[in-house]
């Protein structure tokens, strides 16, 4: 495995009863890349996210992250290794404030223990202050600093999506998985989101894998694309290559098979 490689999925299949959601899936992502995963509805894109993050255990195959296998680990252990994600259907801590949402994500980098929190001694004070500062900083980047005390469920939809990304970043990941970050956003918001993804990738030194249906966003920022259909990769390549790939056009437009 080359040093530059961050994630490798080899020959992964995911079977639910009689349904093969994903079969013979191969993927390889290098450090610093921005990769898109596209495909028609029900193609198995979110399933891919779920077996990378440990929500599902792949039926067969191997997933390696940062040189080590992550198959069999629980989702929280995978987050601690450095993979963070957002969800297609937003899963915020909806009754909590915006700030608390992000603070929770600092969990795996907090070291103080039970007695230190009860008696507020030792590392409690300094770590809590650091958590607070870092969270405020993150929220500023995502233009949520004036909504810090707002309850998360009261935020507008676009802001909720931004908060989810901010929360994922607070876990300090190496690899960020975004599941339809632009869903429900208007073109203006989508454009801003694109700029933001570019910016955070550069400034946090992140590797990003995103699922998206909005082609302007996918073609605008992704360097490489994987196209899934019926759980199988039908094409990979640069956005230009994908746009001209007859298989992809068939999958998306439903045209007759071109031989």
């Amino acid at each position, binding site marked *: 495995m080359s040093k530059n490689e961050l994630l490798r999925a080899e020959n992964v299949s995911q079977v639910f009863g009689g349904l093969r959601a994903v079969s013979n899936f191969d993927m390889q992502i290098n450090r610093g890349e921005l990769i898109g995963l596209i495909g028609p509805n029900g193609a198995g894109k979110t399933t891919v996210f779920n077996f990378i*993050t440990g*929500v599902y255990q792949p039926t067969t195959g191997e997933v390696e992250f940062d040189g080590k296998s992550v198959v069999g680990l*629980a*989702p*929280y252990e995978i*987050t*601690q290794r450095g993979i*963070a*994600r957002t*969800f297609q259907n937003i*899963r*915020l*801590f*909806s*009754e*909590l404030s915006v700030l*608390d949402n992000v*603070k*929770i*994500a*600092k*969990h*795996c980098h*907090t070291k*103080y223990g*039970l007695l230190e*929190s*009860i*008696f*507020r001694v030792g590392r*409690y*004070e300094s*770590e*809590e202050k650091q*958590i607070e500062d870092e969270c405020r900083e993150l929220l500023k980047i995502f233009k949520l600093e004036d909504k810090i005390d707002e309850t998360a469920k009261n935020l507008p939809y676009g802001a909720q999506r931004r908060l989810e990304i901010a*929360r*994922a970043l607070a*876990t300090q990941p190496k690899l960020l998985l975004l599941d339809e970050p632009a869903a429900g956003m208007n073109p203006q918001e989508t454009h801003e989101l694109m700029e933001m993804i570019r910016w955070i990738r550069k400034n946090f030194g992140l590797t990003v894998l995103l699922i998206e249906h909005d082609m302007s966003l996918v073609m605008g920022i992704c360097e490489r694309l994987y196209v899934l259909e019926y759980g199988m990769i039908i094409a990979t390549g640069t956005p230009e290559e994908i746009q001209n790939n007859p298989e992809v056009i068939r999958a998306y437009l439903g045209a007759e098979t071109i031989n």
Partner: protein
Amino acid sequence: MSSQRKYDLILILLGLVIFAIFEILIVTKTIGAFWQLNLLLIGINIIMAASLNLINGYTGQFSLGHAGFMAVGAYVGVVATTNFHLPLFVALILGAVAAGILGFLIGLPTLRLKGDYLAIATLGLGEIIRIVIMNIDYVGGAAGFKGIPHLTNFAWVFFAVLFTLFFIKNFVNSDLGRACIAIRENEIAAEAMGVNTTKFKVMAFTIGAAFAGIAGGLFAHNFYLISPASFTFMASFNYLIMVVLGGLGSLTGSIAGAFVVTFISAALADLPEFRMIIYALALILLMFYRPQGLFGYMEISSISIFRKFFDRLKGKRDV
């Protein structure tokens, strides 16, 4: 000294002042024997409600067996003082440790269950604890344990309450408490944020059980006799009512809930035939008009009239 620790110290000082006021009222016999007993019960119920709130309200795990842990604390405590002549303090700690260990052992397998299933499992386990105690002749079986020294007084209860509230307040305002609250809010998201959900559910359950053990010890040493009949699932329900009535996820709510429920049942002691009817009606009305409980998720320090006062304690300047 840091501002947060200063705030804690001021709150403790405030607690001492309240303690002094009540103690004077008791010594001068302004509070009679009947209300003095109810004051102790309110305190014990506050410990029960606050510790159950940590499990049900903050961590969102619906437990219905809290009286079982109280029974363990009570019986371990009375054996320690009556049979081994240990001081009450040691008895309370032994009771807390025993209830905590049992909570840990029960929590590990049952907390895999969710919602209704967990409620039924904990209900059953609470009953198992009671029935096991009922069949141990060493502690008197169904007839109960007799000849317990009367060691509980207002000071013991008050400082146990203060310690419980202090402990739980600081727990939920730490990273560990945030992890528990995250589990309540969205378990899948909590796991995705790196929270080991099983660990924190079991942690909350164990801490809650340990405090129920302390409450049990205080309860037992207030009477000359305890029997398994005091720890039925009806008792568990009663603590649950206090928590829900006060507000799931609010410590102030647990205090208010324990106070209101104990007060209503004491005030209606003269009308035994109407007591349960009025009690039930009060609950129905409350759930109609305030389903989130008296305090919802709010604490007294975040309600606007009190906020200024608490902010000044914390040393915040007006902005």
